[in-house]
């Protein structure tokens, strides 16, 4: 099946690199592993691919306690045990207690689906290894009902990782990989255009400058990212802040208004205030 090449949509700006990576993954049917700074749109990518190609999206969000088996199916032994104690007739058919996981659901989809495995690095270190065969062959075996589940259409799989753990080599071999870089100023402008088409040019210029200046502050624990910038712009627009209020070139450096949207922890805010204070003292 030939798909149109994924590119930027009206809500999402994809660089050429990214489109190429997606095209390769879709064409060759390999999972695409996406890494990058938090807030650069890794998770959103899967949603956008699904919408662009008009495919159903299955999301599987991974937590530190998630097991690979949960993505396939779970055998709800506890409720079967309870039913048996209560004398429920359902107890005789084991398939009543097989609960389908996200992977199973994606495998049985009528059209080729998009499957998002979000933040795979959150799970146990063995988690990716437990999915090798499933991602390779797109099939798995249900021991309880002696049934082989095979994907009707090979799903487009997008996997995101925040680099909290190393992923095993055997797993990486089976994936394609793309690292979403923090957007440069030009790409950032395109991203903002997509989200706020009517933003005033001068406000945007000032806001972007203030944003990159804050990102350059050394030692921030969490640098503001794209999603924080978008939130901040939303606030600026809602409050109708004038571009002049953002300007800091006259030496009297000020803290940008509503900076709470950009800096997310008190140490960073504190550090930033300190720097601004010092700067004021030296320029006075």
């Amino acid at each position, binding site marked *: 099946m030939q798909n149109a090449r994924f590119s930027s949509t009206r809500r999402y700006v994809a660089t050429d690199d990214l489109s*190429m*990576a997606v095209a*390769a993954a879709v064409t*060759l049917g390999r999972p695409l*592993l996406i890494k990058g700074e938090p807030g650069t749109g890794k998770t959103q990518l899967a949603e956008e691919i699904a919408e662009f190609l008009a495919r159903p999206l299955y999301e599987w969000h991974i937590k530190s306690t998630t097991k690979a088996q949960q993505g396939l199916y779970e055998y709800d032994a*506890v409720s079967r045990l309870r039913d048996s104690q209560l004398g429920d007739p359902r107890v005789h058919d084991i398939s009543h207690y097989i609960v389908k996981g996200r992977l199973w659901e994606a495998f049985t989809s009528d059209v080729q689906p998009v499957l998002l495995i979000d933040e795979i690095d959150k799970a146990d270190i063995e988690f990716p290894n437990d999915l090798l065969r499933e991602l390779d062959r797109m099939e798995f075996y249900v021991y309880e009902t002696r049934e082989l589940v095979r994907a009707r259409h090979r799903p487009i799989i997008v996997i995101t990782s925040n680099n909290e753990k190393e992923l095993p080599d055997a797993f990486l071999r*089976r994936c394609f990989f793309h690292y979403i870089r923090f957007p440069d100023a030009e790409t950032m402008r395109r991203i903002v255009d997509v989200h706020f088409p009517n933003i005033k040019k001068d406000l945007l210029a000032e806001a972007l400058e203030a944003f990159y200046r804050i990102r350059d502050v050394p*030692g921030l624990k969490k640098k503001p990212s794209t999603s924080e910038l978008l939130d901040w712009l939303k606030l600026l627009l809602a409050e109708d802040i004038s571009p002049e209020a953002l300007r800091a070139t006259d030496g009297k450096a000020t803290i940008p208004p509503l900076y709470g949207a950009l800096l997310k922890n008190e140490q960073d805010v504190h550090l930033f205030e300190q720097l601004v204070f010092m700067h004021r003292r030296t320029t006075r």
Partner: protein
Amino acid sequence: MLIRFLSLLREAGIPVSVTEYLALLESLKAGIAETSVDNFYVLARTILVKDERYYDRYDRVFAAHFSGIESMLELLGGAEIPDDWLKRLAELHLSPEEKAKIEALGGLEKVMEALKERLKEQEGRHQGGSKWVGTAGRSPFGAYGYNPEGVRIGQDSSRQRSAIKVWDRREFRNLDDSLELGTRNLQVALRRLRRFAREGAAEELDLDGTINATARNAGWLDLKLRPERHNTVKVLLFLDVGGSMDDYIKVTEELFSAARNEFRHLEHYYFHNFVYESVWKDNRRRYQQRIPLQEVLRTYSPDYRLIFVGDATMGPYEILRPGGSVEHWNDEAGSIWLGRLLSAFPRFAWLNPQPESRWEQVPSIGVARQLVEGRMYPLTPAGLERATRVLNAR
């Protein structure tokens, strides 16, 4: 087809396998990359490289292979060295004999020339193996406290801007952090740090326990739960770079890349010779981006294990006196800062790459050892074993 490119990638230490090579051929056949080199660059990277820390090496190999350059030497032609600090450092660190040697070479200007030459040689030999340029330990420049990370190597200034290709910009250089080779034995010892503490909430059904309890209950269901296993170890790593440590950077690096795989949280900071009021996280920007030690102290919780890696070989005044630092004026002595660190993170150890037999001969090692309450261990698997035992003690 492309086999030479592939073997170059492998030589550069990027783990590329046959599977990936075949996938690349398949994708070329499918016509994804069309016919431009830029497209091929992205496509091959997507398929062959699985970690952003290899992006920089990939860029270098790509540049070398596809612009027909026989070796890497030409790429590294424009090494830029910030003259002033090199001079300053050289003056601070040189012994009389070394000064005489410099005179023999024809003054500092000549030394810098020679240094550039040396850089070329060494990069040529390593061919992308490691980001530390002057790590051989045989380099006469090691003694100057010369830190290769501070040197910009690349062609950004020596070529016209417009002609620079993506792979020549080397934007991923800073992500290249690992040297997996030979870390096996260190890793074994570090694994001891993984304390599979059964802490936290009950989460997992204990099937055996449940069956047992239910049977004892005469068939009446009695569910048993047990806590999940977590790897709870968090580590703060302080690495000594520059100066007398250059000889040991290779060993340090091996430890570092071993450590990366092992912990839930691993934060690293660099210092030079001894900890003072500020440290840094990015060696390339050590002069611009310093992080106050106070910030480190209040950022991390006391359950972080603190590990120093340093040879502690210096003048004892560098530890004990205010203003003792060789690089800047420090208002408070290094020993005071170290004391603050140790009281903030009560589980700590110091790993020293110097052989244990030499510790007695170096006064500053004795001082440092006293300050860390004797918890100094050699940087060997056995030493690590002892260190991890201390780190695990409650």
